[in-house]
């Protein structure tokens, strides 16, 4: 493992002050405004420990919700919500991933091959539909190319909720405002790596500059293909599934080994704003058609009355 040379400057257990640009030591990247940052989530190394969920809740002071057992595998979080900004999916494959045993069978394939685990999060879309739908400007693009809700401006209209093709944004019943992952905006401003990525013990969640992450993901897919995992692909990188429908790319993208739907991701997400023009045209055309029909009917009835029939 490569240790950053600056790490030798901070060998003591407790520090009197924050480490400047700490992300250089923990994620190998210096956080600077004006650059694009995001997450690369490699699901092939996720062990479902939920450290990311806990770190997110801890840092963002998010209350626990959905208290109880869902009965869905080891997943008791359920889904992303106003109070849950990271959610580890547990997908039990009925065919063991390669036509072998199910995870519920006594005989198991090696290396937990029947399990798919994925830490889901806001995708911080390049063309963010939630941002496009927001009438107050509460949702905005930060200097780090991430998407954040400004709580003092959000009026809780909820337009962003159906606009998100991934079902990420949610309006809290408690405070009536929209909430979602901020990609730890406050930490980025302080030179810190986002809490979830920092806590991930297997580096399934990697934080960094987007171009660097995309290159890393490409190399990882090639490695997996070389090892015989031909199902590996990226979701959300340019010209890949997840970057369809004019989305271009997602700042938080994934490496998957099954169909997107298996991970509860849409196969071909689109921007709702792209449907406004066709929908408006169809509406206007219908209105014009009805007007023409009404005029024709009125003209016909007037003609009949004139002829005294």
């Amino acid at each position, binding site marked *: 493992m490569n240790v950053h040379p600056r790490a030798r400057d901070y060998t003591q257990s407790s520090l009197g002050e*924050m480490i400047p640009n700490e992300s250089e030591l923990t994620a190998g990247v210096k956080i600077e405004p004006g650059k694009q940052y995001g997450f690369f989530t490699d699901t092939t190394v996720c062990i479902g420990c939920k450290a990311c969920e806990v770190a997110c809740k801890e840092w963002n*002071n998010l209350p*626990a919700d959905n208290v109880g057992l869902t009965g869905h595998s080891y997943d008791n979080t359920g889904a992303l919500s106003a109070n849950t900004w990271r959610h580890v999916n547990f997908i039990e494959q009925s065919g063991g991933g390669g036509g072998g045993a199910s995870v519920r069978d006594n005989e198991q394939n090696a290396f937990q091959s029947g399990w798919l685990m994925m830490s889901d999060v806001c995708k911080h879309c390049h063309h963010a539909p939630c941002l496009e739908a927001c009438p107050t400007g509460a949702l905005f693009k930060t200097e780090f190319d991430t998407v954040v809700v400004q*709580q003092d401006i959000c009026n809780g209209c909820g337009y962003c909720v159906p606009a998100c093709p991934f079902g990420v944004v949610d309006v809290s*019943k*408690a405070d009536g405002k929209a909430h979602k992952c901020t990609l730890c905006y*406050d930490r980025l401003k302080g030179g810190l790596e986002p809490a979830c990525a920092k806590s991930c013990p297997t580096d399934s969640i990697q934080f960094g500059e987007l171009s660097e992450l995309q290159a890393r993901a490409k190399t990882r897919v090639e490695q997996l293909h070389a090892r015989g995992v031909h199902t590996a692909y990226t979701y959300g990188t340019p010209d890949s599934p997840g970057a369809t429908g004019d989305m271009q790319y997602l700042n938080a993208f994934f490496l998957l080994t099954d169909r997107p739907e298996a991970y509860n991701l849409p196969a071909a997400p689109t921007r709702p704003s792209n449907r406004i023009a066709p929908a408006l045209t169809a509406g206007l055309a219908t209105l014009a058609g009805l007007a023409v029909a009404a005029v024709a009917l009125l003209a016909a009835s007037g003609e009949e009355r004139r002829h005294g029939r």
Partner: protein
Amino acid sequence: MEGTITIVQEGRFQLSDDRGVSHQFVLDRVALVETEQLRPLQSRQARVRVKYTDASGLISLIAHRIELLEPKPSDPEPLEPVGS
């Protein structure tokens, strides 16, 4: 409940009561305080009284009103904000 606000994130905050027990709060949608007023209270380590109710489906309390209190004679001096 009375105490000191120790952590603030958006409209969520943590209050440390007189026994040192921490309680998590979410501002109510019609609370008599705005989200941007919380952080100054935290940095001043001001003593406050929070009127609240239980939240349904959340391990949190819903804060309806925050009143500023006089500091106790035994209260420590507020810490200087980091970077000042």
